[in-house]
């Protein structure tokens, strides 16, 4: 495959979820991403290009950051399909190949999505948000200096692992083919998320204590709200309900004081 088409695929994969639909989820974005390379692979045979495009228009859903790995793997395997095999029936061998690609897409998508959800959405994103927002509340609004610093901290911290996964996932998929699964499982993502979890708890308690101690006359209210909302959220009350309870409670307290 030509380098320029691979680069185009990488940038097109940013639009993976542009036409996210409940029926086949990311299928449109997926086909859009791989289209330049597919056209190059099947440049000689219009019919096979059509078949390949139809095949990749099927259901596909995974985590957007790690989807690049699957895209790269699909392209590598598609590229192998057209290589002359020398088997008696080329059509039959191609049929099994396409089944292989299809099942790979389907079976890799689920676990990778679960991995991405727990690592990025449930760990990295809250952790970076906590650090940026915690910085704001600990420093206080009057001596932050340049007001965009917390935003820049957040963008920088969050996008380091994000772009790393997007870029190296793509590159590894192109280079190591199906061995990439082994490589990703060697990354020890579980261990890293465990470290982030512990660090998050530590930072959160630090921010909480610093915030409540610095507040002066509202200390008691802060501790009370923290305990009440922690217990309620642990009992699966939604945060929106706790929020409305807080609104009513605070306005009521204002009238009582």
């Amino acid at each position, binding site marked *: 495959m030509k380098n320029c088409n691979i680069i185009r695929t990488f940038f097109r994969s940013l639009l993976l979820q542009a036409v996210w639909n409940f029926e086949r989820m990311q299928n449109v974005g997926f086909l859009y991403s791989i289209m330049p390379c597919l056209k190059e692979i099947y440049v000689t045979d219009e019919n096979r290009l059509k078949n390949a495009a139809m095949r990749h228009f099927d259901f596909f859903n995974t985590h957007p950051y790690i989807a690049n790995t699957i895209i790269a793997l699909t392209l590598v395997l598609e590229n192998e399909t057209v290589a002359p095999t020398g088997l008696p029936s080329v059509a039959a061998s191609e049929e099994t190949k396409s089944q292989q690609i299809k099942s790979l897409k389907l079976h890799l998508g689920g676990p990778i999505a679960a991995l991405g959800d727990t690592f990025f959405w449930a760990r990295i994103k809250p952790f970076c948000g906590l650090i940026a927002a915690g910085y*704001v509340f600990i420093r206080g609004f009057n001596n932050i200096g340049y007001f965009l610093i917390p935003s820049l901290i957040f963008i920088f911290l969050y996008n380091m692992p994000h772009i790393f996964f997007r870029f190296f996932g793509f590159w590894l998929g192109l280079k190591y083919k199906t061995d990439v699964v082994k490589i990703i499982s060697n990354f020890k993502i579980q261990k890293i998320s465990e470290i982030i979890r512990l660090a998050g708890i530590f930072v959160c308690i630090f921010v909480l204590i610093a915030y409540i101690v610095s507040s002066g006359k509202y200390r008691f209210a802060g501790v009370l709200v923290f305990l009440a909302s922690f217990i309620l959220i642990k009992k699966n009350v939604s945060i929106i309900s706790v929020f409305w309870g807080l609104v009513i409670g605070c306005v009521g307290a204002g009238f009582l004081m």
Partner: protein
Amino acid sequence: MLAGFELIKIAFVGGLISLDSTVFGQFMLSRPIVAGPVIGWLCGDIKTGLLIGAMIELLWVGVVPVGVGVPPDSAIVCIVATAIAANKVPDAAAIAIIFSVPLGVIFKRLDIAHRKWNRVFLPVVENGIENGRYHILTFVIWLGVFLSFIKSFLFLFICVFLFNAILSYILPFIISAPALVKGLQVFMFVLPVLGLASFLASFVK
């Protein structure tokens, strides 16, 4: 008071920011901590933007989208709250947050309806592939981006206009009631504590 041009400017930039949450890239520019200061800067009141952004960021920190679930949208809440609280008295920020939190849920409903509706593109693209017209794929993708942008743009335009008018109208009454102001000040203090509690609840097993 927001002038007509400023309203369009906010809705336009807000629409672009909210594209980042699902449609394009996910660089998390749509998180409140980034969207708040940007919209605040646009309104000439970056401090309020940062305050509201940090508050809503902490409030949304425990909200995790799992699988195909669509969570309430934090970017819309933050953009509307910042736009209507900018250049007003400090206590306006609390009321702006209370007003705009329900919008996150409403926008989520709208988003789900939009994603269900997106299936109309599937037969169109399939038809295009059958006939060898592959450029229809590019067209559909960019149409999807454009429609998402229009959706956020109109939603923001209407909400900011409406809520700004309501807030400007009721703000004098609220400020003249000392008990209410006191309650709102307590609320602004304990809101981050609620966010921290939800963070801890999702991180502690």
